[in-house]
């Protein structure tokens, strides 16, 4: 059921053309970031992940809001569960976001902007790249859902609230005492610049991301349940 719903939702979202602009911006950003020659893998990936984060929020906003209200009601009655509907909608938003995440991982290789070496350090950097790129997908998705047109009420307010949320993510990220209130965007960017990010450092970031996603996901669920 959820797979059928996710597939239908994604199909409607893709064909609505709403995902085109964020995907184009993501491609432009990645092309720009990786056009400056060869650099250290960790810093390159961390910068790309941080810059692509707002686009992933935008993508989730568009994906969630792509299905017209009455069609969404028909789907809700068809699937018989608000929770399943939310799971399907989140899954479609994550799927859209994973396209950008995959592009973020592959692009540096295609553009030749990371120095490929056959040593253990490079392997660690590659693992770091995977974590950096994938760990931001869930918080970007729930932030997009929370600030989406469906949850907020109209498109203009959704755009404003989404922009404010991304700016707040950066501002809070730079305040050590308040950084836990925002997704671990700045923390990850800092790890990219660190000489040797250790496993505990990465684990802290992953746990931060998971907890933040759970809390904001629950808030998003309440916001959508009220509107749906």
């Amino acid at each position: 059921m959820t797979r059928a719903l996710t597939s239908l939702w994604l199909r409607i979202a893709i064909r609505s053309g709403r995902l085109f602009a964020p995907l184009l911006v993501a491609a432009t950003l990645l092309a720009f970031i990786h056009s400056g020659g060869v650099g250290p893998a960790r810093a390159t990936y961390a910068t790309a992940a941080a810059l692509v984060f707002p686009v992933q929020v935008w993508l989730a906003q568009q994906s969630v809001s792509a299905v017209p209200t009455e069609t969404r009601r028909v789907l809700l009655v068809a699937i018989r569960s608000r929770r399943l509907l939310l799971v399907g909608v989140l899954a479609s938003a994550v799927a859209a976001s994973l396209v950008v995440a995959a592009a973020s991982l592959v692009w540096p290789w295609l553009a030749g902007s990371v120095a490929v070496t056959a040593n253990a350090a490079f392997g660690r950097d590659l693992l770091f790249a995977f974590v950096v790129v994938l760990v931001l997908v869930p918080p970007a998705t729930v932030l997009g859902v929370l600030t989406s047109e469906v949850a907020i009420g109209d498109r203009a307010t959704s755009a404003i609230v989404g922009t404010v949320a991304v700016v707040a993510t950066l501002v809070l990220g730079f305040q050590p005492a308040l950084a836990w209130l925002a997704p671990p965007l700045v923390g990850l960017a800092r790890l990219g610049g660190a000489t040797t990010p250790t496993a505990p450092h990465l684990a802290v970031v992953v746990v931060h991301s998971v907890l933040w996603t759970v809390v904001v996901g629950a808030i998003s669920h309440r916001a959508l349940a009220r509107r749906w």
Partner: protein
Amino acid sequence: MRLSGVTFRYARRRPPVLSQVELDLPPARLVRVSGINGAGKSTLLRLVAGARLPTSGEITGRPADVGFAPERLGPVRLSTEDFVTRIALTRGRSPEDATAAVEPLLEAFALPRDVRLDEASKGTLQKTNLVQALALGRELLVLDEPFSGLDAAARGTLAEALAAALRAGTRVVVADHGSTLLDLLPVAETWHVADGTVSVERLTVEDATSASELTELRVRVETSKADATASLLRSLGLVVNDPRADEPRA
């Protein structure tokens, strides 16, 4: 199925659209929902279908297989056939079952299969809306202004589909701004929505003002199905003159 003390408001500080609604909806019952524009008919239908949750009160006994046709289906960039089949798949049906549920309805409504919904005429969009609802609503059908935008042939097809659904025991709730439903089917009950409340009018043939407005039909059914058919006809408000009894029973 029962609505008990159901109240609904769109925002906390706004007055309720519906207040303390008490309704019963037994199987094989056709209900017409009437009321002026903005009275809350569509809201009531969304609550009955489960597309909205009541602010307070509860709705119990809603069957599992519900079909819901809103007043206007949002236009999406999918073909009519693709849309209705995929909606049936979200109910958890296999592709074969989904096709089997949808195919006869596509044929009956003569729905063009490859027209994109964002380019479809009002009639095609409405037929698509009805096909998806009829394919899903085996136990409860909730239709908001279903005759709007339909030509005479499609109205007849819809009336036949509703009559068949009622025979199968489906509860049918239809918002009908005009009197199309009354012209096509015997309506047992009307829910009139006004001023946030819902009043129930049960219509029977005794409401007809003179005998000249009544027509007597003879119905032949298998003996084993006689009682079930008689009770279905009575639930529709018809008088059943059972030859096994001395007097007509309403």
